[in-house]
């Protein structure tokens, strides 16, 4: 139902629309994303007033490499949709939606921290879960899960047993 409505309302913005497992997913054009989101929030037919989640999925062998995934919810109309934006790995950016939903502030910061996706127009885009001197973006598939970056040097008590001074 939403698919028809959205397709009728928008044209070139929607690159792909799918309905799987009762969930509607739209892939949209990166350049026109902000206007698309504003229309979703403000037009009474859609009324998506609640930004549930912003995250990304890394597909290193695909082109474009990243999918930035938004989950939207309408508290008044009771429907949900998922919106995706394909983002190139060489220059990963999308427009920030902080101006539309306050929740985007922290969610976008986390997505930047974990995937290195730059949200253009975000007022304060810095790391949130990792520390500032952390190198790399841990949820990218090319970041090995066992890689360690301790702030304080780690001492292996087996190799270097702690001996008393006496």
């Amino acid at each position: 139902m939403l698919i028809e409505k959205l397709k009728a309302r928008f044209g070139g913005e929607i690159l792909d629309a799918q309905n799987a497992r009762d969930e509607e997913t739209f892939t949209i054009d990166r350049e026109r994303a902000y206007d698309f989101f504003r229309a979703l929030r403000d037009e009474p037919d859609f009324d998506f007033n609640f930004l549930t989640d912003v995250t990304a999925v890394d597909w290193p062998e695909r082109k474009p490499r990243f999918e930035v995934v938004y989950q939207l919810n309408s508290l008044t109309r009771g429907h949900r949709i998922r919106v995706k934006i394909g983002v190139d790995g060489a220059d990963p950016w999308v427009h920030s939606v902080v101006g539309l939903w306050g929740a985007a502030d922290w969610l976008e910061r986390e997505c930047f921290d974990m995937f290195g996706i730059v949200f253009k127009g975000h007022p304060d885009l810095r790391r949130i879960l990792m520390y500032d001197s952390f190198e790399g973006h841990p949820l990218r598939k090319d970041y090995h899960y066992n890689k360690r970056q301790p702030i304080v040097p780690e001492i292996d008590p087996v190799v270097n047993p702690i001996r008393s001074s006496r």
Partner: protein
Amino acid sequence: MALPARWKDKIVPSDPSDEIMELQMGPSHPTTHGTIKLNLKLDGERIVDCDVEVGFLHRGFEKMCEQGTWTQCFPYTDRLNYASPCINNVGFALAVERLLGIDTTERCKYVRLIMSEVSRITDHMTCLGAGAMEMGAQTVLFYMMEAREFLYDLIEAVTGARVTVTWCRVGGVTHDLPADFTDRIKSSFARLDQVLADCDKLLSRNRIFIDRMAGIGKLSKQEAISYGLSGPLLRAAGVSYDVRKAHPYLVYDRMEFEVPTGDRGDNYDRFNVRFQEMYQSKRIIEQALATLPEGPVMITDPGVVLPEKQKVYNSIEGLMNHFKLIMEGIHVPAGEVYQAVEAANGELGFYIVSDGSGRPYRVRVRPPCFLGMGALNKMLIGHMIPDIITTFDMINMVGGECDR
């Protein structure tokens, strides 16, 4: 006041009223149970600005989930919100089941629902008890911890563990309710009623408590929605949004319960909403137990569920089935799904992506208290330092869930 001559060059008198003081509160502070750091800018004792730092308990939940099989994610989900681990288990199991396109048994749905509601009560007990304690109401903490402990006994009787339950599986749950569960619930609820009545008397109309809570940390309806708050925080602001009503899962659509809401959106409303929700959870459990159907609590699909030990040890088919499921994992078809459940703190969402192999390609958790912490700045500006404690408590930030 004249200064002694020897101090004259050392002290530069200034007007303290127009100086902004910076104060770093945390990461280890006695009143912030959970490790966070607040970089405060203060005008006297009034908060001018507040930068909230989280992430001290980041363990890489989402990354670690990608390393094992789908079933191996369950122990990690216990450690999200560790005050109500059953709800996290249920949320993840429901998400994977939807991606697989399977449905659990009728009894399993009821059992999951009952345990979710017991967990909701224990979570609210932890939040309200600790919150009251940090305002000086130590008695309430002791009463509530005692009540939580006999509810944990119930959870232990079912799952075998108090906190790290790892009790759900894809396709069902590991243990059914014990035979005497209804009696146990009855006796526990009789004691629970007493505790709730006592705590209600101690707090709800207590002048000191109301002075500390009412009008503090206010958020309007629009702000609460914009900041993505859910659960008691959103409902306290007057928005009657509950995932159990709006997008029912398990058998919540068959249960009768109310969604308590507030109207002012302050800390006192948040307290009240949580308190009322415990009565509603009790009501749901009683209804579910009255209509609990008989039957198994696990489906028997060999592609999803481990075979019985009897078959594993005595037949080659059973052994192979077991080996394949353990080594390769459940083959979840490629695709993605977003499944939300109403956790004690709000909408807990699992967005999972499968590439068709036996391992999760991406597991994303939408942590409700992370969004609450994102709005803490907005709630605190203009208030005093002691108000940080009450506001922070009513967000009920749980490190495991917020930082993952």
